[in-house]
């Protein structure tokens, strides 16, 4: 059996190579060395979630009908039978109750969407705090920012087009934001909705954007993103032998390939478990969308939470420029997120202005190594986190029994006070860690062992982190950007003797 398989593989490989002569290129690429660190697999979580999204989305698209025409629901779900619903909502219900594995695939698709964005955020945070975006990888960073923005919008379009009461309220907010744009707002609204809200063509437009335009963009950007990582080689953490001019890791085949396949299988497994165990977006409970109806606890999916949080915190400040009114939501619903994404996208260049560091970097930094950058990152995360939490003021208020007005004010004040505080605290912590590293390198690692000198003074023994030479003198060690071995017991006995 094994012999036959080997013969077949060899035959096929020979046939391909004789026609396209790819053997040397394949050998070269198979020897492509990948640095190994567990955090380098976080981006792949997003990648494999995206694969699951494409596959499950294809299945859903076979059954979903992007149409606002009203029909009477006659399916098996009793609490909705006989109601007027759009064909889109009707098909989402039939997907859930009548299509084989439909509900599972719907839930799989939705969980994969959440995980896709969540993993991108985690991956982006890792790249930020380790300085992976520095020259020569600015383009990879820019592509990542674009992927995040498009991914958020893609997810929003996806859950909106089901036309249920929960997402319909989000569509209303989108319509309001478009209208709030000065001068061109009405035109923008007509461009998307083809008329006044609610209109009857928006679902088919959302659908085409969701299943064709944005996924196409995402695929292209992911290809460029991953291609750049391959072509420019992955960054690596400093370690034994790992320097700017070397790569320490394992080859693409078989080492890296087996790991990444294992990672992909695990992503699929976790998503499958989530989809099978936890209910997500039960549209049959939300009911069909009608502009006259509303519910409590209306939140978007988590990735759009910061937008809603901003809208909830922002005071009702309207500006009048002559005859034009600039509505309050414009600033916080459109300007603020665009500003946040612009800062994120431009950060590599902003940091270059701050540090004047134009050199290319293949080796990553520990977050403590650039205390200011880590502080800025913490500031950004806290700012985003407060907006995010404020998007759920009602859930927080009822869960923790706090009047929700308090939460709004806490969010407003927190948004101004906490990010700078986070910057100062985190930068201070990083500097403290730097000092502690320097102390360990200069004076040795704390052992916790006290020794009484001849004069009766107790002195703590310090172990030199670089070990000691034959004469017992500590070997001087420079900070190499990697973790210092702080175990007190390593060679502690011999150090004690030699001292």
């Amino acid at each position: 059996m094994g012999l036959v398989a080997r013969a077949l593989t060899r035959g096929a490989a020979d046939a391909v190579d004789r026609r396209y002569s790819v053997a040397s290129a394949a050998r070269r690429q198979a020897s492509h060395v990948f640095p190994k660190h567990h955090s380098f697999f976080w981006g792949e979580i997003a990648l494999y979630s995206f694969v699951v999204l494409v596959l499950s989305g294809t299945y859903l698209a076979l059954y979903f009908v992007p149409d606002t025409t009203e029909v009477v629901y006659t399916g098996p779900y009793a609490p909705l039978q006989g109601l007027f619903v759009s064909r889109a909502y009707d098909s989402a219900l039939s997907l859930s109750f009548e299509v084989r594995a439909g509900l599972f695939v719907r839930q799989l698709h939705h969980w994969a969407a959440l995980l896709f964005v969540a993993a991108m955020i985690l991956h982006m945070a890792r790249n930020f705090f380790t300085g992976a975006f520095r020259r020569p990888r600015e383009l990879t960073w820019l592509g990542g920012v674009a992927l995040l923005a498009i991914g958020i919008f893609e997810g929003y379009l996806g859950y909106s087009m089901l036309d249920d009461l929960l997402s319909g309220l989000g569509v209303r907010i989108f319509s309001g934001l478009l209208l709030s744009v000065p001068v061109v707002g009405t035109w923008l609204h007509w461009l998307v909705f083809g008329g006044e809200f609610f209109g009857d063509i928006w679902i088919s437009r959302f659908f085409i954007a969701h299943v064709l335009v944005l996924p196409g963009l995402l695929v292209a950007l992911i290809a460029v993103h991953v291609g750049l990582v391959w072509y420019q080689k992955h960054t690596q953490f400093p370690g034994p032998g790992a320097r700017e001019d070397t790569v320490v890791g394992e080859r693409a085949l078989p080492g890296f390939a087996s790991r990444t396949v294992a990672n992909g299988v695990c992503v699929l497994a976790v998503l499958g478990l989530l989809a099978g165990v936890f209910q997500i977006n039960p549209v049959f409970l939300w009911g069909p969308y009608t502009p006259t109806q509303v519910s409590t606890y209306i939140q978007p999916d988590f990735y759009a939470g910061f937008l809603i949080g901003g809208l909830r915190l922002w005071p009702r400040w309207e500006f009048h420029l002559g005859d034009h009114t600039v509505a309050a939501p414009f600033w916080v619903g459109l300007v603020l997120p665009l500003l946040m994404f612009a800062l994120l996208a431009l950060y590599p260049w902003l940091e270059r202005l701050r540090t004047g560091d134009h050199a290319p970097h293949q080796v990553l930094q520990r977050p403590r190594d650039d205390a200011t950058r880590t502080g800025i990152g913490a500031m950004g995360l806290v700012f985003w986190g407060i907006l995010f939490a404020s998007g759920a003021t009602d859930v927080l208020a009822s869960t923790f029994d706090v009047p929700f007005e308090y939460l709004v004010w806490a969010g407003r004040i927190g948004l101004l006070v906490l990010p700078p505080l986070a910057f100062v605290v985190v930068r201070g912590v990083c500097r403290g860690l730097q000092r502690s590293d320097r102390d360990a390198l200069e004076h040795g690692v704390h052992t916790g062992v006290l020794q009484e000198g001849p004069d009766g003074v107790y002195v703590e023994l310090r172990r030199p982190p670089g070990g000691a030479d034959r004469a017992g003198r500590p070997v001087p060690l420079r900070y190499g950007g990697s973790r210092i071995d702080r175990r007190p017991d390593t060679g502690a006995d011999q150090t004690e003797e030699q001292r």
Partner: protein
Amino acid sequence: MMRRLRNVALIVVALAAVGGVYALLVPSPQTAVAQTADTARTAQGRALYEQACISCHGANLQGEPGRGPGLTGVGDAAVYFQVSTGRMPLAGPQDRGYRKAPAPEFDPTTEQGSANLAALGAYVEANGGGPTTPTTPGDQLIGSDVAHGGELYRLNCASCHNFTGRGGVLADGRYPPRLDGATPTQMYTAMLSGPMAMPVFSDQQLTPEEKKDIIAYVVSVRGQNNAPGGFGLGELGPSTEGVIAFVVGLATLVGVAAWIGART
């Protein structure tokens, strides 16, 4: 002489006609007269009232300034809703009047409790009238058209009580309650009496049949009924889903990545 007699007779006849028409058109003055059969129950209700309610609501239901509102005209339905759900009597000055276990003497699940509730209601009803608790047993207050009830529920109730009765938030730290524990009679009397911030849904606004359909919808979707797809995550919408995505999904995969990265 004859002419004079005739004039007098005409005046008498005219006066009689006017008086008769007046007597026919003007209704007799209304006086609240308790039926003799109910007198004993009303008296029992008065006794209960004077034990449990009088300190805040006053001697003749007129209310006590700063302590409690007057109850004239709130009706038997309000009494049933407030007392059977344990909102009244308040446990103390800190009690904000939310649902709790009913006082033992007003527990609607016991015979004595429901008799006491009826007596208290009759006493309040006898002083100013108001909406009354339906006499049909609770399970007959669950209507048959669940879907119609659902539509009415989303139109009238979901803006405070949420899609499936998970409650919500109002201004000033007040909360519309979750509908988990509410019995059909309690939901019905709540709609009739409009407790706290809730509007009154009289029979002109929602017919008894529509009220029953709404109750049928609430019963059909609460407690994870008609909600397939796995654990319901509190039916709080995307908030809890986001928490699960991070705490279960992403955290597990970060652990997996650590494991994959550590394997040699």
